[in-house]
């Protein structure tokens, strides 16, 4: 479903991490872990096609991307947002499916409220409803636990488990461990960089540049 070979994301002509070889098939749930700033978000954006500077190979099937930003129009209600996403994909989602998805995430009460008036956590739940309605098997999620309360986190784990069990795959960058059965971890390591105050030639020239 997703395969990468020696993938290195590049920002401003600097490689962000050591090359990654990744292979995802149906039912896999992979967590991306690494220190802050190593490029987890950039990796996901590269896989989603939003960041084009990279080296290596990527083959990716139909996917769903959820970034840091909600992706919800704050002037529309959750219902209108979900309908719009369906229209974007060419789907004709029935009102039953919509209400089922909203019920699943617990947003039926606020289905017609402007998203601007919903809290971050509530908006996150609407995003989860969006995932449920999307037919794409591969989910690329960036920090999915953000803003979710205890209940919301439980809901997320449930949804992810069900998705993987039903033959989908999840690739998530997260600081909080996913509580999903059969999950594996992909560690991202930064490349070796000259240390500030070191004595090798590369470090000195880097310091010169800084000075």
């Amino acid at each position, binding site marked *: 479903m997703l395969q990468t070979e020696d993938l290195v994301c590049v920002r401003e002509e600097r490689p962000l991490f050591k090359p990654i070889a990744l292979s995802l098939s149906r039912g896999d749930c992979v967590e991306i872990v690494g220190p802050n700033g190593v490029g987890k978000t950039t990796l996901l954006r590269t896989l989603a096609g939003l960041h084009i500077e990279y080296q290596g190979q990527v083959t990716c099937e139909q996917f769903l991307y959820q970034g840091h930003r909600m992706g919800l129009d704050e002037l529309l209600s959750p219902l209108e947002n979900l309908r719009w996403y369906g229209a974007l994909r060419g789907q004709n989602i029935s009102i039953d499916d919509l209400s089922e998805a909203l019920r699943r995430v617990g947003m039926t009460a606020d289905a017609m409220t402007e998203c601007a008036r919903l809290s971050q956590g509530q908006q996150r739940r609407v995003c989860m409803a969006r995932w449920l309605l999307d037919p794409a098997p591969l989910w690329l999620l960036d920090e999915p636990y953000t803003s979710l309360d205890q209940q919301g986190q439980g809901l997320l784990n449930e949804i992810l488990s069900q998705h993987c069990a039903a033959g989908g795959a999840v690739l998530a960058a997260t600081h909080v461990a996913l509580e999903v059965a059969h999950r594996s971890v992909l560690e991202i390591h930064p490349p070796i960089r000259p240390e500030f105050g070191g004595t090798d030639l590369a470090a000195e*020239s880097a310091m010169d540049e800084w000075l």
Partner: protein
Amino acid sequence: MSLTELWHKLGSPRWFYQMSTHWVWGFGIAAIVLLLAGLLWGLLIAPPDYQQGHSVRIMYVHVPAAMVAQSIYIGMGVAGFVLFVWRMKLADVAIAACLPFGMLLTALALFSGSVWGRPTWGTWWEWDGRTVSTLVLLFLYIGIYALREAIPDAQLRARASALVAMVGTINIPVIKYSVEWWHTLHQPASFTLTEKPTMPPEMYLPLLVMVLGVYCFAGYNILSRMRIEILRREQGTRWVRALVTAPTLTGQR
């Protein structure tokens, strides 16, 4: 070497650097020779215009500047296209190199046009087809310059300026035509300070020499800037270090 091979080689900064060494020398010498010859010919030897007298000699500076300034912008548009389609990084180096000289030439064209206008029209500035198109060209240049200044990320900067350069290039003929049209509408008995085919050879030959000279100078300037930029961008590579760290230097790191 076949054309496709040449094209692929062009993508390599190192090959370009090595190949351009001769070109830079060639352009530089040709520029000096042509510009000196052209200036002497045009400013001293060529006959004065029966209408304008000696002030027509500004044409030998103004017209080449305007022509080459526009060509450089179109060159940037082409480089932008190459960058978008073939992802050639050298194309961005080319755009960055064309920008300063192009802006300078456009400013020179505007200034010399204004100086030319003073004895001819009686004013320091006149809004006619030519002046407006040249001024718009200056703004197109400034637009790309401002855009490049605003984006810190090199790759994004490359793509954004390539896009703007392409859009600007496509619009140049439209803008020129519309402004010429507007000018003929407003001043039906238009006396345009442009070269016409009815110019005697004593006048258009030195003009041609000047145009070629400015093109050569542009080539020299742009290639030199490209070379410097290549050295800057590739400073981590071995071939650049070998170039810069000559074996005769002692006592250095």
